[in-house]
């Protein structure tokens, strides 16, 4: 099982966050810390690249939903790209796509922050 790793890069007003490994109960506090740091800096446009994500647990999904709602309240959003098929099925079946926008590629996703 790979350890959770997190990296980020700014694309204008959007923070692109890259996950790798497993986002579970042990690792999601690290994500929370990073997202709270962005919010404290007034950066509420967050794009999360899940292409290297092995696993996401329900607590991880819950955390993403919470941050997406908070970001929207502040005029931003939290969106996902490159979501693995199995995770995407789960997100859709649980009705989470109402809160979490999912895009197929980085360009479209980045542009969507400015179109909203």
């Amino acid at each position, binding site marked *: *099982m790979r350890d959770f790793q997190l990296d980020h890069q700014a694309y204008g007003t959007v923070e692109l966050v890259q996950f790798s490994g497993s986002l579970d*109960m*042990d690792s999601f506090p690290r994500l929370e810390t990073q997202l709270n740091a962005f919010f404290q800096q007034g950066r509420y446009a967050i794009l999360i690249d899940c292409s290297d994500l092995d696993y996401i647990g*329900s607590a991880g999904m*819950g955390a993403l939903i919470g941050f997406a709602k908070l970001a929207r309240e502040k005029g931003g959003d939290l969106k996902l790209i490159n979501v693995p098929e199995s995770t995407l099925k*789960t997100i859709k*079946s649980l*009705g989470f796509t*109402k809160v979490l926008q999912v895009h197929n590629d980085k360009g479209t996703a980045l542009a969507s922050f400015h179109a909203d």
Partner: protein
Amino acid sequence: MAETNTGISVGRTNGDVHVRVAGRGTFQNGQPLRRYALDMINQGVRQFVVDLGPCEGMDSTFLGVLAGIGLQLREPATRGHLCLANVSPRNLESLQTLGLDRLFKLAPATGAAPAVIPWQWLPDPTSSQFRASDTKKDAANVMLEAHDNLIRADNRNQTKFKDLTTILRARTDKDADKKTS
């Protein structure tokens, strides 16, 4: 049974139910465990032993399923116990984070469970034998119930899971409305 396999296996000895979690305990394999445990409780089983020795980790839904079984066994009409065995430091931390270490008995590490247990695998909801639509509805319901259990077990979990339970409740209410209309 090969130790390399992952999933939930169960067996009965002397009226007790033994559960072994190999690999991850997830919101997917929590569904059949919940069903099996409720069935066993209805049949009069009062002692559950869950072996977490081969368990790599548990998500909050799986922990909520265990909490639901533990809470049901604590009911005055039931008066049973759920005991967790071979809890790794990582899994203990997950239990403590959600305040569940006070709900279950924690047995000291005993190594492998007795070989005489006639283990059988619980079905895997991700396999083709499950109808996709049933699994989807079940997943939302079980996930909601599991997180409600976590909140019942420790009120501090309310803040942690407020957003998740709100969206799941909206989803399950919508499904219920569809059924009645």
